[in-house]
């Protein structure tokens, strides 16, 4: 529907909408997160869901204890290599449409433990992350901002056409390969379909 006509009609007191807008409006206002915390960032996530910051304003206060009922995975904290396969498996068990917020320096990059032998250097190596939040730990306001960013992202998704989101494309994968414990490290070290190591700058 033409935006100009819509705005003109609303001035005359006629409210119009499209299926797409209605669908996205419903989706963006009922993002149920998975009740899932890995480290200290989870404390900030819990604070964000409590009365002072009140995640319920965004329709996201219903932390689900099962991935089958969740729409959003907030990877809140350090993802160790021991934990990474479980995180990916939980993500796989969530029904589409599903979203990921990587919360905090550890979840987006390994953070202060980046040089450690046992910490994954960012969960985006295995699963597609929608919003990254820096900070150690990020304040609840930062998580709220990530929520609003995600809502804006959902709101802009078209229902049809080439730009439609992954869950509406039949060929797009819903499950991502779960890494295995190898001899020295997780195998594979990253999912090439999701993340590839940055190319090294050549000398010439």
């Amino acid at each position, binding site marked *: 529907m033409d935006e100009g006509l819509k705005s003109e009609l609303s001035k005359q007191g006629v409210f119009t909408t499209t299926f797409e807008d209605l669908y996205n409006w419903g989706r963006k206002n009922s993002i149920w997160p998975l009740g899932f915390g890995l480290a200290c960032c989870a404390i900030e996530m819990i604070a964000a869901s409590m009365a002072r910051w009140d995640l319920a304003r965004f329709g996201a206060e219903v932390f689900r204890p*099962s991935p089958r009922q969740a729409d959003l995975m907030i990877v809140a904290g350090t993802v160790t290599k021991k934990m990474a396969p*479980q*995180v990916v498996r939980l993500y796989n*068990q969530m029904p589409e449409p599903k979203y990921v917020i990587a919360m905090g320096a550890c979840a987006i990059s390994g953070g202060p433990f980046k040089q450690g032998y046992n910490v994954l250097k960012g969960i985006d190596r295995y699963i597609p992350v929608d919003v990254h939040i820096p900070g150690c730990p990020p304040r609840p306001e930062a998580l709220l901002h990530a929520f609003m960013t995600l809502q804006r992202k959902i709101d802009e998704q078209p229902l049809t056409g080439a730009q439609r989101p992954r869950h509406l494309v039949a060929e797009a994968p819903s*499950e991502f390969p*779960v890494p295995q414990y190898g001899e020295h490290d997780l195998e594979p070290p990253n999912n090439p379909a999701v993340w590839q190591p940055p190319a090294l700058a050549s000398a010439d």
Partner: protein
Amino acid sequence: MIQVDYSPYLLIVVLLVGAVAFALTPLALAWLWAKKFSPNKPGQDKNAIYECGLESKGDAWVQFKSEYYLYAIIFLIFDVETIFLLPFAVAFSGLGAGAFVAMTVFLFLLVEGLLWAWQKGVLTWK
């Protein structure tokens, strides 16, 4: 007075149909929507039984120790005893000697059972 020429139960049927439609219509709409727009994407992890991130191991047919039932039974007996004792105690001043003897016999039987269980070593945690 207006004569009602339909069954009063008709209203219940109408309300019932309304209630069922109220529950089923959103489900049907969601199903149609998913059929039209959202492709079905089952998978190995998604269809897994266990949903805590770990893979399920072993068999669901495991055996549990049944010895705990003895504690449960002894607790239950004395729990029920309390239920009998409380009204007895409340009405105590108005009761005769026969009621007192009956309650003493009842208590004696239970205490005897406890002593028997104690002697058998049931109360020792293994």
